């Protein structure tokens, strides 16, 4: 067995184990940390596929951005002694059965689908190629979705500022 295969199984094991731990732990911050491990192992899988740009995006956005925001909001709202209650038995059975059925259907579909080796020539995923494709206006260019997402983000940001902004208190110093 080559090292690539071993690394693949290692990352997959980390992803599976910590995903389970993240939903079964009763401490909220530990759940966030286990989620961080899952996301980092996913980045590791991208590195294994030599898709470094995606791996760095995964690390910056998910591990460095979203998990930090989650932890930040937990720090603001929860106390360390807080423990989640165990869920009701009915809810537990329902949830587990939905998860089992969902994953069962997915696995069955993947195992029965006749996958064929791709005949498309491989394009190296360098920064230059990705950048040109992302802002390309020609065939298969992504400039329109790119601009749409930018406008959406801008709108979300303006909305967030308006929601968060308080009335100015004239007596306050700051």
């Amino acid at each position, binding site marked *: 067995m*080559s*090292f690539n295969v071993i690394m693949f199984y290692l990352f997959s094991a980390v992803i599976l184990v910590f995903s389970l731990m993240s939903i079964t732990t009763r*401490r909220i*911050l*530990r759940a966030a*940390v286990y989620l*961080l491990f899952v996301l*980092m192992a996913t980045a590791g899988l991208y590195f294994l596929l030599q898709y*470094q*740009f995606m791996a*760095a*995006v995964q*690390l*910056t956005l998910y*591990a*460095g*951005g979203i*998990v*930090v925001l989650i*932890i*930040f909001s*937990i*720090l*603001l709202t929860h106390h*360390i*002694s807080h423990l989640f209650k165990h869920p009701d038995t009915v809810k537990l059975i329902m949830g587990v059965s939905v998860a089992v059925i969902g994953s069962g259907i997915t696995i069955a579909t993947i195992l029965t689908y006749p996958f064929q080796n791709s005949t498309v020539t491989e394009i190296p995923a*360098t*920064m230059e190629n990705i950048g040109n494709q992302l802002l390309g206006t020609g065939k298969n260019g992504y400039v329109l979705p790119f601009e749409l997402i930018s406008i959406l983000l801008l709108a979300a940001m303006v909305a967030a500022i308006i929601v968060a902004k308080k009335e100015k208190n004239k007596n306050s110093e*700051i």
Partner: protein
Amino acid sequence: MSSNLYDFSTLTSSIHEWLSGFMSAGWVVFTELVLIGLLFLLFFALLGLFLVYLERKVCAIMQNRVGPNRVGKWGLLQTIADLIKLLIKELIPIRKSDKFLFNLAPFIVIIASLMAMAALPFAKGLQAIDFNIGVFYIMAVSSLGVVGILLAGWASNSKYSIIGAMRSGAQIVSYELSVGLSLMAIVIFSGSMQLSTIIESQANGWWIFKGHIPAFIAFVVFLVASTAEINRGPFDLAEAESELTAGFHTEYSGIKFAFFFLAEYINMFIVAALAATIFLGGWMPFHIGSWEGFNHIMDFVPPIVWFFLKTFFIIYIIMWFKWTFPRLRIDQLLTLEWKYLLPISLVNIVFIAFLVLMGWHF
């Protein structure tokens, strides 16, 4: 060109061939990974010790004192004595803390800085891994360190720790933007994110000279923002000792505290090395236009010496900041980033894009 004299790639490739002689390809990679890891750990420890010594000496110079001078020649062994003291100190367990996260936090901080160091080019051919996205990779992994600080603050279950952690979270998340944008300035100039390509593009002049005023603005913004991002004075609000005892690592003792302390100094080195690589030409020697003789003499200084000279110059500046500026308040800190540095670097980046588009840079 005499810089080939100091090319490390012949050394590394000969080690690779020697190992390939009696191992399969997979084991060669594995052995090399272990070797590089051990080298980095050794470098890490020695560098940390030296930087702490340097900090104390620079602080002493700024305050008109002598600094450590009792242990060893010029006090050089002082930090080793301190290290031994830290190693044999008691690790105090905290009741009602989250033990798992409490013990995990120092490791996250130190692993983040170790990962960032892997992409640094120390000299020609002396780079652990040369990513196509080098600059972006360093940004990505160094943003993981803040998770460790936040966890340390939370898991200690102490009010000083959590205030320190909240401050440092707000600070690092904000200042990351300016650091990224100022690095992006040079990425636009050189047209690549690969650190080796960025260095090669500075063979005929460093970007801080070639990039006119915008590159200099980006350099200054990078210095200020990265000083804030590594939680150093005058932006060391996360561990403001006069108000928060020690901030996020108040409850840590012994070797766990040493990990935070070490990571802070290593992060300073990484930031300085990145500034030296991106703006000051990395291991490229200092050349002046058409002064052939002068340039030739400069070529004889090994690249690794150039790299460390530039890096320690930046480290000296960062230490100078710490010991001469008073600490900022948290609102002043955030105002500085969001109202000054971020708009400046955004305008700067548009200006640079225009410069490059018109071909006005060298």
